């Protein structure tokens, strides 16, 4: 009878140890998941904002390129026959702009 009390004691202690360990493990899992979700959320936001900025910058580039194209048609440096300018280079920037 004394022995069975001892065994019960041991069982109870083991149960309690396991309960606490399981609780710790569950807590660790939720904390890990919460951290991941936080990081993920911040990555999504950064992603959207970067794409928005790229859109803005490309818009600006387009606008500039249009402005330059329009100018090329009427640039006095290119069209005035008094200027001894070689045929405008069909490269990146219009010929009238300084290098």
């Amino acid at each position, binding site marked *: 009878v004394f022995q069975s009390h001892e065994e019960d004691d041991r069982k109870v202690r083991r149960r309690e140890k396991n309960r606490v360990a399981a609780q710790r493990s569950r807590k660790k899992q939720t904390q890990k998941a919460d951290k*991941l979700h936080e990081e*993920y959320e911040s990555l*999504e936001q950064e992603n959207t904002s970067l794409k928005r900025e790229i859109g803005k910058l*490309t818009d600006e580039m387009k606008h500039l390129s249009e402005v330059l194209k329009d100018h090329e048609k009427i640039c006095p440096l290119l069209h005035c026959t008094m200027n001894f300018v070689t045929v405008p280079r069909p490269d990146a920037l219009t010929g009238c702009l300084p290098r």
Partner: protein
Amino acid sequence: ISPGQILPANRNTPSPIDPETIQVPVGYEPDPADLALSSIPGQEMFDPRKRKFSEEELKPQPMIKKARKVFIPDDLKDDKYWARRRKNNMAAKRSRDARRLKENQIAIRASFLEKENSALRQEVADLRKELGKCKNVLAKYEARHGPL
């Protein structure tokens, strides 16, 4: 991109840019083992590029009030009891599997976003540099010859 060059079709519209359409080449290949862990066999393979996770999905799981464990002596463990246990055990397994799957998917997408963001940051830097050069040249011209 230089001023005279035509931009890709999806960026040639006059309307405000939709961030969704902006694409940047991202050299990203998820580990096939991870991908397998994140895909449901009966359905399409999980794609980190397309699959977003909403706020709703990211909220921590609601804590359901569990019924206290009542000890049941062996003689009361009849067939009905075991049928109930089996049903609950299956549901618990499904729940654990679904949760594991979701976490794997989120992890893969997060990893993909890291790569994509890095490429996007590079693109922003390149565009700013290009823009800077053009504006500088333009400013020099306008300094000498007045506004365009």
